[in-house]
């Protein structure tokens, strides 16, 4: 493939043309992406250190922290990972998917900085309250557990800031359309980000609806916030925010597919419809946190927890096909036509962008997705609720799924946006395997321990000092140790990521003007200089049909294996449920 050489041109002093991608990058977009990404990394570092402490306490053989510190550090872990790291990163994704991909300016950059400021102030307030021990209420802060009012105020400021950024994203889409910065429709990645942004509005409105009354209650203005109503509305924030992650992650899957191997979109209609299904049905998902709650009846639970007949699960299953199918088709069109899995064998497994994409896809689907849908079934939730099965599930989705995808795309953002070489590139090639592999072991050990009834969010499962003894099976000790080891491996992977990004961004070598493979090989992911995403195969290439498996036989076999695993796990859980006491 021809490697372009280009110079950094300045257009009207505002845009610079990226010599690698040919995209015009607005300087404000550039700076806003950088600022949000840097704060996200700081939050990841804090949350990651907290993760190690939590891990070494739950690993009963180590049992590092005392009870007070454990719950405090667990609160810090949850807020930093699920709120601050993820949302700051998503703000960067929104600027990227609008301004950068559409070659547009940012609609209101000054407002963008104002929003960034609000989010940072909110974050600092929350961190301060948590670390000072004035908000030992965990991530969910279920009332009537009470935190300092400043904690709730911090969350509200953060959410308002995020809502403003979402508004700027919509504004940028309008600006780009009006100023004709692109032809045709918005690219699929932007479309996916748009769905994430719409879900973000739904989420943040729920956040306001629950945190404002809770703030007033903590100040003594309101007498009471109903504990069940709190759980209902809070999960409208707590779960919907995970759906922002899903939509953003799937968008990044498509993005990484394009950047690393030039994956094509097999059918725009299918992929975009699947994103629309997320918007229409995902907000009901909050209900699957309330399946064994007293406030709601069976029909409400059945309808809502199935995201209305599992239409959002259908969406994920469609993406689970179209993303690998796009990779397969893209590679076949480029000549990787050997057999059924030749394209997969010859894929760039040393490209951290590609390995991240694939690991994220597989662990999210096989572990996170299957367990999530199974535990989220009304009756099966009886044998899953609040046990370690739940964090086992969501670490597979949000950590080895979302965070892994975000890490993978970072290896491209460093050269494409920050214009730096990736520091310790040799380490970067290994990082996804350590991180996702460790997380996979961690999640599975946790999930299995949960089947023995081991509770989540619990300081001491030896129950020392409790009035009655509880003796878990010796298998639990083993599983907790496996969880500990898997978690530590993942922590090493996470630490490598932080080291690589911080050194690259602040002390990294500039990319320079020479974008040839000779100049860049071994210091950035190969997609940056081979640019498969800029050379689209034409329709002329004839592809072989593999009988009933069609033109994408490898993907078809993979999704059928996935379905088989899903069916087995799902019905095995019904069987497990049938062994417990009759209850109704």
């Amino acid at each position: 493939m021809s490697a372009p050489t280009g110079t950094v041109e300045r257009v009207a002093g505002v845009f610079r043309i990226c010599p690698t991608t040919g995209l015009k990058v607005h300087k404000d977009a550039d700076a806003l992406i950088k600022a949000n990404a840097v704060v996200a990394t700081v939050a990841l570092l804090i949350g990651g250190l907290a993760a190690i402490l939590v891990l070494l306490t739950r690993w009963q053989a180590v049992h590092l922290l005392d009870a007070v510190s454990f719950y405090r550090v667990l609160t810090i872990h949850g807020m930093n990972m699920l709120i601050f790291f993820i949302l700051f990163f998503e703000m960067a994704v929104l600027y990227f998917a609008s301004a950068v991909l559409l070659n547009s300016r940012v609609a209101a950059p000054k407002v963008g900085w104002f929003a960034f400021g609000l989010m940072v102030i909110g974050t600092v307030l929350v961190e301060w309250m948590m670390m000072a021990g004035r908000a030992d209420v965990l991530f969910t802060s279920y009332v009537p557990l009470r935190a300092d009012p400043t904690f709730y105020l911090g969350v509200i400021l953060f959410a308002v800031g995020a809502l403003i950024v979402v508004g700027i994203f919509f504004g940028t889409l309008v600006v780009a359309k009006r100023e004709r910065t692109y032809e045709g429709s918005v690219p699929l990645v932007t479309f996916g980000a748009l769905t994430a942004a719409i879900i973000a509005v739904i989420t943040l409105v729920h956040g306001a609806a629950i945190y404002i009354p809770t703030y007033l209650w903590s100040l003594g203005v309101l007498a009471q916030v109903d504990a069940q109503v709190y759980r209902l509305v809070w999960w409208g924030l707590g779960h919907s925010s995970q759906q922002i992650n899903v939509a953003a992650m799937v968008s990044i899957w498509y993005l990484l597919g394009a950047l690393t191997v030039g994956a094509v979109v097999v059918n725009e209609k299918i992929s975009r419809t699947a994103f629309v299904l997320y918007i229409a049905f995902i907000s009901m998902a909050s209900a699957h946190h309330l399946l064994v709650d007293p406030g709601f009846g069976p029909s409400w639970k059945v309808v809502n927890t199935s995201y209305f007949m599992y239409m959002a699960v259908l969406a994920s299953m469609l993406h689970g096909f179209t993303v690998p199918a796009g990779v397969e088709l893209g590679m076949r069109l480029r000549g990787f036509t050997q057999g059924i899995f030749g394209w997969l064998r010859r894929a760039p497994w040393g490209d951290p962008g590609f390995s991240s994409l694939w690991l994220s896809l597989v662990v999210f689907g096989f572990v996170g997705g299957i367990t999530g849908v199974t535990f989220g079934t009304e009756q099966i939730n009886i044998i899953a609720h609040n046990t370690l099965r739940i964090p086992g599930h969501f670490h597979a989705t949000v950590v080895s799924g979302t965070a892994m995808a975000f890490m993978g795309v970072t290896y491209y953002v460093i050269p494409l946006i920050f214009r730096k070489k990736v520091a310790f590139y040799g380490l970067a090639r290994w990082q996804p395997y350590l991180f996702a592999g460790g997380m996979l072991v961690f999640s599975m050990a946790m999930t299995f321990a949960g089947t023995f009834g081991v509770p989540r969010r619990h300081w001491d499962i030896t129950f020392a000092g409790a009035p009655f003894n509880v003796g878990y099976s010796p298998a639990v000790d083993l599983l907790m140790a496996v969880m500990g080891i898997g978690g530590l491996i993942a922590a090493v992977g996470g630490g490598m990521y932080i080291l690589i990004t911080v050194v690259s961004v602040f002390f990294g070598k500039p990319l320079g003007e020479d974008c040839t493979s000779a100049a860049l090989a071994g210091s950035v992911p190969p997609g940056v200089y081979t640019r498969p995403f800029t050379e689209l195969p034409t329709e002329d290439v004839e592809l072989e049909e593999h009988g009933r498996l069609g033109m994408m036989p490898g993907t078809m076999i993979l999704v059928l294996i996935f379905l088989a695993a899903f069916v087995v796990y799902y019905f095995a859980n019904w069987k497990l449920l049938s062994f417990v006491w009759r209850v109704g």
Partner: protein
Amino acid sequence: MHTTGVTSPKGVWWKPAHRSEKVWFTIAFIWCMVLFAMMPLWHLRGGQNPSGIRARVDADAYRARVTQFIQDYQVGSENGIPVVAPPAGSDVYLLGQMWQWIPILQLEQGAEYTLHLSSVDVNHGFNLYPFNINFQVVPGYDYGLRVTPTEAGDYRIVCNEFCGVGHHLMVGKVVVQAPGTASATTTTPNAAGGDR
């Protein structure tokens, strides 16, 4: 012309799906319908459903009900917690509070009880060990579940919703006796450590 995720499709992109995609869509859709159908089906045929009798209840009223329940059927005490043996088929009241389950229940195998769960302070989590049965215990709400203990044994109730710094101390007890063996009961004095 193919598109990638980062290229703008030109013209109309609403085109017929690829055959493989149609096949997978159909399989996935059918599977989603199976997933959906299983829940109502289990309500009809299955023995484990989280339906229950649900009502709002004031904390003081619930505490009074539990106190009455203990007075009616108390047969002893263990570690300072009353042991209660309600008749088969009756309403059974369990109260969660920081950081205790009150009272200790003595039930008969195979009999159906309506087990009421509520909290008088914050959220708690009902986890029956070693059977992995879990329910959320929410202050202000009475969750009345019709339960049938299917096996005799010595069970624990582990709190699995974070309820403050003493969360790990919150362990309760349920004893299920085979029918006919229900004795006057074991009255253990408040010996430290109990049956540890």
